């Protein structure tokens, strides 16, 4: 069922720079379970887009199949959405982006959709540095089919039925770093103060931005012994830094002790300000990020925050040297060489 939200709007709701209220960024009422982490992530997406004053119709939201992939219906009602097939969202997003480089592409996927059936497409979207934000709503289990372990479930994690997962879990953040991703972050659905600035920074990034968001499944994977439960994640989380997102042309107002703060200017002139909590780590140093990630894993910590960013990243269009104009805006006169040229081509085959 799709529920229609009441149309009533409070007349005094504040508007952002492009004239939209926060409710203009919402979608239909969620049909996910009460307390689902995914709904919190949808809330963070709404807040980030509202605060960044993105015109909602400039966003294309895409997804695969699964609980997570339903969420694009629950935010950004004025954006076109594409709920594709299981594990294939990256290729649809790639084609959409090839057609129009000027839109903002927001892909939502789950751990089954990304780390199992969609692993091939996920990996290759990273390789091509497709300009998009790819959010994984990661709960370590298959919800819609009632709780089977997914490929990101940690070895030893206990399911609701009491069985212990015997297989190694795939760490999407580590894999993305290895593959050369240009923006890699991890967060927690319950931590909006971290997630919202991360989403903003990712939307400002020129290239593939991965945010792996731990998002507990309240129905099937929130039990004692699960490593993706609310309690477990809260107890083991280790943030790399406090994060502030500073829009373009806005002054940095918060100041941290010198030496502990890093400001990274992003492609669109905005910047992320990071107050480091972890030693020996720089978000622009891939090697340091990988080593810090390995260290956290060894210590049983869940590392969150902006793990790595390459502010000079070149996206797919720059790599393949396609026209600066959106290709879908080109007309016959731009594209069709005409009968005269065809006569010359014919001559080459005689």
């Amino acid at each position, binding site marked *: 069922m799709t529920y229609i939200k009441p149309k009533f709007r409070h007349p005094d709701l504040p508007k952002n720079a492009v004239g939209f209220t926060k409710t203009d960024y919402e979608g239909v009422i969620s049909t996910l379970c009460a307390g689902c982490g995914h709904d919190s992530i949808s809330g963070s997406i709404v807040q980030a887009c509202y605060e960044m004053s993105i015109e909602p119709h400039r966003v294309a939201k895409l997804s695969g199949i699964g609980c997570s992939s339903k969420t694009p219906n629950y935010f950004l009602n004025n954006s076109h959405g*594409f709920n594709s097939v299981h594990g294939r969202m990256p290729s649809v997003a790639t084609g959409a982006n090839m057609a129009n480089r000027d839109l903002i592409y927001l892909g939502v996927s789950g751990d089954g959709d990304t780390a199992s059936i969609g692993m091939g497409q996920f990996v290759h979207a990273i390789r091509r540095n497709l300009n998009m934000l790819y959010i994984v709503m990661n709960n370590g289990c298959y919800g819609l089919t009632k709780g089977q372990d997914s490929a990101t479930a940690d070895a030893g994690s206990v399911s609701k039925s009491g069985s212990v997962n015997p297989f190694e879990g795939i760490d999407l953040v580590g894999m993305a770093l290895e593959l050369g991703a240009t923006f890699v972050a991890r967060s927690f659905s319950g931590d909006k103060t971290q997630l919202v600035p991360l989403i903003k920074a990712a939307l400002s990034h020129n290239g593939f931005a991965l945010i792996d968001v731990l998002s507990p499944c309240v129905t099937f994977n929130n039990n004692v012994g699960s490593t993706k439960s609310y309690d477990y994640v809260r107890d083991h989380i280790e943030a790399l830094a406090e994060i502030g997102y500073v829009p373009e042309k806005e002054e940095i107002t918060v100041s941290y002790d010198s030496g502990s703060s890093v400001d990274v200017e992003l492609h669109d002139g905005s910047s992320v300000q990071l107050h480091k909590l972890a030693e020996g780590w720089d978000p622009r140093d891939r090697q340091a990020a990988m080593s810090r990630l390995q260290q956290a894993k060894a210590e049983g910590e869940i590392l969150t925050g902006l793990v790595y960013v390459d502010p000079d990243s070149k996206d797919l269009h720059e790599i393949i040297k396609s026209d600066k104009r959106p290709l879908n805006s080109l007309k016959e006169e731009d594209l069709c060489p005409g009968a005269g040229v065809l006569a010359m081509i014919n001559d080459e085959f*005689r």
Partner: protein
Amino acid sequence: MRNLTGVNDLVVRFANVNGTGSASANNMFAMSIFRMGIPMTAKNIFPSNIQGLPTWYEVRVSEKGYLGRREGVDIMLCVNPQSMKQDVASVKPGGYFLYDNTKNLHKDFIREDVNYIGIPMIGICMRLYSDARQRQLFKNMIYVGALAALLDIELEVVKGIIADEFKKKPKLIEPNVQAMMAGVTYIKENYEHPLGLRVERRDLVGDAIVIDGNTACGIGAVYAGATVAGWYPITPSTSLVEAFAKYSNRLRVDPETGLKKVAIVQAEDELAAFGMVLGANWNGARAFTATSGPGLSLMNEFLGLAYFAEIPAVLVDVQRGGPSTGMPTRTQQSDLLLAAYASHGDTKHVLLIPSNPSECFDFMADAFDLAERLQTPIIVMTDLDLGMNEHLSAPLKWDDARRYDRGKVYTAEDLDALSAMGKQFGRYLDVDGDGIPYRTLPATHPTKGSFFTRGTSHDEYARYTEDGVKNAQVLDRLTKKWDTAKEILPLPEFYQAQNESNIGMIFFGTTTYAALEAIDLLKQEEGITLDAMRATAFPFHASVEAFIEAHDQIFVIEQNRDAQFRTLLINELEINPKKLIKVLNYDGMPITADAIRNGIAKHLEAIKL
């Protein structure tokens, strides 16, 4: 022994080793015939291999303009010891076997009823060239010269082709001409020439061109305004996207910035290739991909989504021999059922079936218009024979007055006008009664026209629904759209004045060459007159059913084992299946007129008894 004789009616086969540069020499031979104004057709019979295995090239010269394959080799040019035994065996009695006699031919290869013409190709090369690679390459030119002298090919024509071939490397013109002339001289000094079997200049090719179907499709996609291609390499479709890339690089690059008005991405597999095509079409670009059977199998999932969510897409299936990996370098028409009903559930797709390169070009342009008009995938069904072999074809034609049909797409103004009338945009509403709804593209309007594209059951406003009645309404509207498609697809072609016979013949695609020749053979040699129809599209136009109705027996000629086209006819039309008689060929080689003639004559003989 009676030697074969005749003018402009012969088959020459070249037996080479793959990867030795023979292709360009063989092509020069074929083009010499063409430039002498004589119709010819060339077939590459090649292995799935890069270097070392046997490969053949067959040229049929036909004054009557028959462009299908013909059984029987009149002249065999054999430079491959590996295949020599079968090559000798394949020569017609009274035919000619040309070989390198630098070494003596083993007695096992001697037939009493074949003429042997030895040319010391390696010997001549050893004398003329010092470099090993040159000896290899120029050996090929020596046999081109020998054939020219034997068949009376005009040497100025051959020289002209060499000059064109090496336009960009003019230093190579002279040595190639020298090698070719060494072959000519050797024949002139050692054999009677020309043979009784020879060629003679005519004026029969008009403004025709010689081009393969993949190149014609690739150029067609450029003219059709395709800007996005996602693809995965697979024989025999690879050269189609490569042609699209080549002509895009030539015609769509800004000379100042070097930026391209095209985006081509080699995908990780065929699933992703088709996903890219859907994403781009959804977002308002014209996008396509090309593949062959194994790739089409993988694309089934997305084809179902495209059908149900009503997303335009263009896909070319260059069919090869199946099942499974099958014969990657041989031809068949055996993906018809897979393509027509690709994906689970009640799903069907529009097919366009071109028969020659010029039609490949036209149907590519039509495919993009139809995909956007009908908001559904259009699958262009070619095959390896059409895609990879060079065909004598009408020139590619484009009418500058032609405009792209972008289909039913609401603009921001349309959406404002709609709401001013108090109407709500519904992505799947049948506004015009033709089963085709209106779509909007992302970013059209800040507050109107957005919708959620999905493969789940949906109502007319693209909202998820589990209401069975609403889902059935959507399925019924898709059937209505299917009926609309029948009216706007390319029409079948009929080969009959009125109904002259109670016997009919149906064929399509590359079978056309052999079928048209078979009609002549049946008339001239068997006294049988047939009416004929060439199918060009699926679903079928009403005239297809009328043609079947009007005849008592209809031979359905196709290049697969299971008579798949016949199944489509039976499945889609209200006809008596008993009237449809199968004539099939599925050995991976293009069907011949003799095979069709024999199949039909044998059946008619049998029912007479």
